[in-house]
């Protein structure tokens, strides 16, 4: 092992520079960092979001998707029915919106609801995790012969390139569930990372620049030989362009956007000292450099057993992260240019089962949407306090997708060709009128 360190001298000058920068940020944050959380700052931020400011701003450019995988219970999150039989003893709290309540585990989100909207009447028709997640991520029900692109792939495909050097579709903590390019091609698959506390995988060369340059020039010798007589075929494989693009990413300053340690300690603490909290903070940093879609996953909501306790634990992670993300985006006047969606693949049964759990419930569940010029401070749809399947003002998952695209200025009627040359619309939903009406 000693030899390995000898061969790959860590770039001391880089790390030194970074630590100075960190120190500077840390020091300045002591002075300024705390100020942004004050009521005054919040008031100023709200002022900046007035309709006039909203109209004059740049068009929305990015999406942050917070996936609550496993299927969160609407009753313990965004659609409580306190005091009813279906609440199963769960409490609810008042929010900044008069008459609107959320689950008791979301006190900080409750304070931010004036910049968000809750849709309580989603109907998904898919009760299996994988199928429902496919629907949530693509807006289409699974189809064995068409592999639909996820929201992030469509954003990366449709929205302008800008000056972004790093991957424009990023998935944090999603494991095998990361957004896929579908028929748009694997080139639109999300770039996957884990907890932002760890280094970004695969972007740092294990060897010195000198050795890397040597490898690259040797590779050219091999590639020249192989391409002769196969030029077109090799071009179709794109293996040469990916070398260039990968190297551009490896040397990009924008990689620093993944590094949440560069944020003030107070802010990091506000997001929560959890992988999901750091993921949300990284998401904000990434869209600042022009990443089109960042998805962050919080798993563990599949509470067939012991629903209330498990939800309480997860909400302790979700509440600070989501609330701080909204406040942070607001404070930086970025919320109007960013659509934030927080949802799971389905909800959970109103009936509490014999093991104190709740089972899958795709008939009526909730999503939170904010930013991107969407109307805010409202609740859409209403579920039955008795736990019936019927809801007032129901919307499909596809409608939610159509709303996101509409706010980003992506034409939902536009058709892309599937692999079987079938034209497929960006979304087959209809934008939710309450969210987009001016």
């Amino acid at each position, binding site marked *: *092992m000693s*030899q*390995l360190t000898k*061969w790959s001298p860590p770039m001391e000058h880089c790390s030194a520079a970074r630590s100075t920068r960190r120190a500077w940020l840390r020091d300045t944050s002591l002075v300024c960092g705390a100020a942004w959380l004050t009521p005054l700052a919040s008031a100023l931020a709200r002022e900046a979001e007035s309709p006039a400011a909203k109209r004059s701003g740049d068009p929305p450019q990015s999406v942050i998707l917070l996936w609550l995988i496993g299927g969160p219970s609407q009753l313990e999150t965004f659609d409580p029915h306190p005091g009813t039989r279906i609440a199963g003893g769960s409490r609810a709290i008042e929010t900044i919106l008069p008459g609107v309540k959320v689950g008791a585990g979301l006190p900080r989100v409750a304070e931010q609801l004036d910049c968000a909207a809750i849709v309580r009447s989603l109907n998904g028709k898919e*009760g*299996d995790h*994988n199928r429902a997640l496919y629907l949530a991520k693509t807006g289409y029900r699974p*189809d*064995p*012969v068409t*592999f639909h692109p996820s929201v992030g792939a469509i954003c990366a495909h449709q929205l302008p390139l800008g000056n972004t050097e790093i*991957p424009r579709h990023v998935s944090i903590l999603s*494991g*095998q569930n990361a957004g*896929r390019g579908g028929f748009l*091609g*694997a*080139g639109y*698959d999300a*770039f*996957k990372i884990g907890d932002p506390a760890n280094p970004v*995988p*695969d*972007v*740092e*060369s*294990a*060897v010195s620049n000198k*050795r890397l340059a*040597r*490898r690259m020039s*040797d*590779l050219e*010798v*091999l*590639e020249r*030989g*192989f*391409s*002769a*007589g*196969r*030029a*077109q*075929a*090799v071009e*179709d*494989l*794109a*293996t*040469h362009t*990916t*070398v260039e*693009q*990968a190297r551009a*990413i*490896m040397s990009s300053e924008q990689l620093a956007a993944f590094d949440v340690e560069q944020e003030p300690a107070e802010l990091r603490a506000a997001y929560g000292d959890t992988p999901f909290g750091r993921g949300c903070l990284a998401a904000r940093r990434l869209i600042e450099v022009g990443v089109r879609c960042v998805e962050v996953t919080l798993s563990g909501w599949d509470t067939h057993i012991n629903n209330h306790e498990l939800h309480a634990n997860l909400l302790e992670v979700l509440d600070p992260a989501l609330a701080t993300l909204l406040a942070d985006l607001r404070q930086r006047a970025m919320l109007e240019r960013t659509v934030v969606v927080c949802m799971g693949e389905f909800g959970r049964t109103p009936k509490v089962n014999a093991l104190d759990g709740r089972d899958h419930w795709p008939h009526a569940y909730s999503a939170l949407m904010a930013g991107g010029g969407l109307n805010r401070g409202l609740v859409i749809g209403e579920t039955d306090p008795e736990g019936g399947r019927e809801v007032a003002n129901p919307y499909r998952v596809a409608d939610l997708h159509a709303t996101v695209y509409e706010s980003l200025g992506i034409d939902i009627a536009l058709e892309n060709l599937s*692999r*079987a040359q079938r034209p497929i619309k960006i979304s087959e939903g209809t934008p939710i009128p309450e969210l987009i009406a001016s």
Partner: protein
Amino acid sequence: MWKRDLLFWGLVLIGIGFLGQEFLPSSAPDANAQLRPARPESNQKPVDPAAVSQSVARLDEILEVSWQDAGLAVAQPVDGMRLARRLSLTLAGTVPSLEEIRQLEAIEEDRRLEAWLDYLLVDRRTADYLAERFARAYVGTEAGPFLVYRRRRFVTWLADQFAVDRPYDELVREMLTADGLWTDTPGTNFFTLDLLPKETGFDEPEVTSRFARAFLGIRMDCARCHDHPFAEWSQQDFHHLAAYFGQLQHTFIGLNDGDEDYTVDLHQTGDEELVETGVPFAEEALPGNGTRRAQLAAWLTDEANVAFPRSVVNRIWALMFGRPLVEPVDDIPIEEGVEPLLDYLAADFVAHDYRLSHLIRVIAGSRAYQVDSRIETTEDAEGDDASFGDLWSVFPVTRLRPEQVASAVVQASSLRTRDYQDHILFRIARTFETTNFVQRYGDAGELELEPEAQTIPQRLLLLNGQLVKQKAAVENMAVNASARIAALAPDDASRIEIAFLTVLTREPSEGELAHFIARFSEVEESRKGELLEDLFVTLFNSTEFLCLN
């Protein structure tokens, strides 16, 4: 206390055995060693070389006529080593080891293809690899319903069938008519994947869609909900076919057939209508009796049903060439003459008892499989090098799938063959490494045979990722090829040659050898290891390594 001592010494002995196994044998492979797989399946029916040559000759005729008619230039044949690499990658999902290359070199050039096919077709790696590919076509990659569906059990059973070269019609009949529990009759997993939760019923339309794609090579999915103006299949066709699965039931004795009628709400009126069984074509092949599933299986595997052999020929061709005869692999027009190669191979497959080994040998023996992927384009030739591939006069260059890249990196980083002879700890480690790599590289699941270009995260993974870094590292004397070559090879030229052979299954060209010898001569002896490590990473990143060619 003595038990703990015994355990301790036992572990020490296992450890010593494990190290010895890795260090001692075959650092210089024995050229006289027999080419024999680690876990051969001996109870295969012997092949008839004359039958294979006859079929190959006819296939070559069809190919040559089409080339002449189109006035196409035909690429040169590739040498035996490149052919062995193609076969290993497409049948066993990995590259030949140096050990295997040395054994192959000891065989006369004109016998190499046959010897290599004999070797690969009885190797358990091949059965396992093909079983996973076919399983993706049959049941996809989903985890499926809890308890009642066991994908791994299903794949292992399939591999067992492939390993003994079970006639494909027999295998499929057994799967489609399987009764009983999903554990002791693994074929039933084909159906239990679509067992609906909390009811005893099955999702018949879903089973029907999968059945049509996997065994008929037709996509009826659109006909499920409506009549499409241009599609060959009507909604009626779909539901009549679905009716064959309408009596499936799942009880405490597992899967079996009930006797209820199959009803569907065809016009979405809320009224269930009775739907009779019926097949969309080749009605004459339908037997008069038997359970519904038995009737369907008999119809499917009847010689009059051309769709069945075509579906498997197109899939095997896709696996061996990286591209199917008719695209997409599971949507083949039903009329004759769309693709003469497909029609011929399908008929030949039926005439030779639906044996996959025969089909594979015929395809491998054909000129199309043996031509180079490179062609010198002249000015009077039309089109570019890629367009020549349409008639298979040039071998198509297609990207390797993630599991092939992972296995190839693991194999190429070792001089010995990585197979079932490996120590259990190595096998476990290998599973972890490759699974992790495949996840990051991006697995396309059941749609894995669709064309795809390389992505940036894939390149980053190859340049900087864990697997490549670990497998190229010269510190790891215990396993890595780079380390052994650095330590054991006598001079720079042989270091470079062995590295090329191990990773690309070929010697370096003169230009390449000169370039790397110059590179190696720049540094003193103690730093050669570093260069060898660089050479391995570079070779792993080369397009030649990353594609089938």
